[in-house]
């Protein structure tokens, strides 16, 4: 379980997040919805300990992580996989090297086991035949699937998705969303999805939080978004995509 308690974050004089409190239960898919540049991706980085809050606390499975050192954070980070918005694949490595990177770096596994797990993810992502290609030679949707496979390979409890369908064509978006839905069914995983596309929320999420002007203005089951009277939520329900 991940919990943010009264988290605030400032960049210089500018306050990005103001007293944000959120809870993500295990084995649920929670979407964080909000306009671009409002601090949604920052929330994911706070959950991973990649950034530290100016005030407030971040708990992962009951451990307060915002005061931990980098070395102390490594075992916490292994509980979560992250799929970055731009995928953040290592561009000098092949697809199979990208997928096996974490295992080779951090786990003392025999090479046969690493190759077996890499092949498993290659099949899961439908990327057979692309193992030795560099990321630049793949389409946007394929790269996203590699990024998901890389996050899944070390069997985390929770996956954090930063704008998983941004910049993808409708067919690729649909594939990625069905891949995310299948994660819970097959792997019993929880997920946090940061998005500005409201259809993504209704397609995959159990619950949703809406971030607006640095504050959480809605945090409940996703279908209850329709019942909200908040003018911003009403406007995004009618516009579907937040182009702000």
């Amino acid at each position, binding site marked *: 379980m991940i919990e943010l308690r009264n988290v605030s974050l400032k960049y210089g004089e500018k306050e990005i997040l103001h007293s944000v409190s959120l809870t993500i239960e295990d084995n649920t898919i929670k979407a964080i919805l909000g306009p671009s540049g409002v601090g949604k991706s920052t929330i994911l*980085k706070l959950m*991973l300990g*990649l950034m530290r809050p100016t005030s407030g606390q971040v708990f992962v499975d009951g451990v307060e992580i915002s005061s931990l050192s*980098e070395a102390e954070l*490594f075992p916490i*980070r*292994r509980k*979560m996989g*992250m799929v*970055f*918005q*731009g995928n*953040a*694949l*290592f*561009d000098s490595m092949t697809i199979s090297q990208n997928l096996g*990177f*974490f295992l080779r*770096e*951090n786990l003392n596994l025999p090479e046969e086991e690493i190759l077996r797990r890499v092949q498993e993810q290659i099949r899961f992502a439908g990327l057979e035949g692309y193992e030795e290609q560099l990321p630049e030679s793949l389409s946007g949707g394929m790269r996203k699937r590699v990024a998901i496979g*890389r996050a899944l390979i*070390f069997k985390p409890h929770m996956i954090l998705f930063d704008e998983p369908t941004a910049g993808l064509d409708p067919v690729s978006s649909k594939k990625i969303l069905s891949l995310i839905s299948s994660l819970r069914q097959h792997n019993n995983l929880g997920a946090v999805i940061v998005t500005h596309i409201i259809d993504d929320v209704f397609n995959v999420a159990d619950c949703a939080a809406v971030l607006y002007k640095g504050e959480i203005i809605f945090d409940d089951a996703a279908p209850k978004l329709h019942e909200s009277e908040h003018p911003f939520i009403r406007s995004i329900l009618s516009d579907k995509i937040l182009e702000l």
Partner: protein
Amino acid sequence: MPVTLIRNIEKDLVYRLKDFFLTMQDFFLFGVRSFLTIPKIRRYWRDFLDQAKICGADSIPIVLVSAISIGSLLAIEVGNLLEDFGAKTMLGRSTSISVIRELGPLLMGLMLSARFGSRNGAELGAMKISEQIDALRAFGTDPIAKLVMPRLVAALIMFLPLTALSDFAGLYSAAYMAEHYHHLDPGIFWNSVYPRLALKDFVVGFAKAPVFAVIITLVSSFNGFSASGGTAGVGRSTIKGIVVSSGLVLIANFYVSKIVLENM
């Protein structure tokens, strides 16, 4: 109005000073962490070999070109000057000291600042912008150990033979010019070189190699790690890395010479 203006200037000055000292603190910690991760070199030996090839073998042509051109030019100009005093036989002595103590290591440092430093800044800056450095951290890898430490160790090791190569090429090109331009017998040239070179001349030259290695690698890598603002930001951080490391190489060149010569 003037009071407001003065207050704004004061506020801006305080902000800039604070920013400068915070950057210096971050740079210091970055440098310390880079050295502290050196024991992990066995784990990242492949990265070390890649970087050793980039800053070592791949830099040979540019180091040779700069050393040969400066050695030749020095022999021509100094030879002309010595001829006026009838002391052309001292050409070997004067060029060898200039090349071994100062120009060989300095030119190598400046060339590597441009070549190795710019590559570091651009590569690491692009990785920072595309969140690859965050991805390393997210997957439990220390980005300094994986990306900076192999570069630092490679530079510390490879800059020494490059300095020797630069000295060698500079001296031989000077000897070639002495023979073919000033018509000085090679025996006279080399006789004025060897017996007069002292240990301190080599210590001055070779002590600069590790100093330049640390400056170039840490400054360029730190700037790459600090890149922000898209591709333009990568460009800015790369340029900043080259300008600052080149400036520091020039300053360090002076102080290393001064300290060694005063103490030997």
